[in-house]
């Protein structure tokens, strides 16, 4: 497990070792959806909001 900082609340976010760029993780402190924009070292940014054409 690694850690990074939530860009929304500054809290610590635990990350799995197999984190992928583009993966979404939730901040357990504030609930924000965060996107991994880098993995070495892990960097998180706010995830895009749901768009109307998302899906299968």
């Amino acid at each position, binding site marked *: 497990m690694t850690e990074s900082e939530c860009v929304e609340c500054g809290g610590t976010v635990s990350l799995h070792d197999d984190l992928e760029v583009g993966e979404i993780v939730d901040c357990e402190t504030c609930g924000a959806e965060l996107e991994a924009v880098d993995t070495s070292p892990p960097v998180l940014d706010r*995830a895009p909001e749901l768009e109307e054409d998302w899906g299968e």
Partner: protein
Amino acid sequence: MKFGLLYSRIRRDEKLLLSELRERGHEVAKLDVREQRFGLNATDAGLADCDLVVDRCLATSRSLYATRFLSAYGVPVVNGPETAAVCADKVKNSLALEAAGVPTPATEVTFTKEAAMRSIEEFGYPCVVKPVVGSWGRLMAKIDSENAAEAILEHKATLGHYEHKVFYVQEYVDKPGRDIRVLACDGEPVAAMTRSSDHWLTNAAKGGATAAFDLDDEARELVKTASDAVGGGLLGVDLMETDEARSAPESSGERSDPRDGESRYTVHEVNHTVEFKALNEASEVDVPAAVVDWLELKAETAGEAVMTA
């Protein structure tokens, strides 16, 4: 082999695919579609040397255009742009199923709320209004009364994107509290599951409970025909069970249903960027392994086609 994975969000589904591809020793180029630039005859994306690109775009609009560009460049891509175009649009989807003789819910499309209201009255209550583009059960409306119909149509006409002014009205199928999702590769079922809920929407994305499902011969044949109807590929075919003889809506008599009452299933849609994490958990089948088996086959076929061209 080298595979490209076109994405804008890595879901559990994409992680399963990435793991399976890498474990088999394949090179994988992850391509964030948000960063790509597509010219009319070339892209700066590292795609040219991919044996196969797998479209896993979360956004339908991006999937449609990105696959169209890749196809124009001669880069093998699954699913192809033709399949994407049919599956992304419920009108095209329904027309393709109907043309192939696949039982599908009776549907009418109108361009004004007044005409939509006539369709709704003719289908009777309840009936269903769906957006022509959408997924995960979003903006689906089961209409139980005239008052509800008027309100929903007015909201769509007033507040919606222009696509919401294409009114897709469908009969309500009284399914037995569940529908069936089949993941198929070029019409060959990989695995199937039921999605059950007390709510009329049973999508896994809406929290429907999942369980493995054994397909009978009729369902298998419908899956194959439905897959062919939309152009084939890696698809999620959705079926509902109906034991009732199907009949045309009571109306002027001009609308006839050639599929009267024979099938135990009706196919309501085929999805082209199918999610499978829930199916992988519900089924004993190793779904990502089966999908990658098929991707390898497609890559080989694409390579042979280039060699003989």
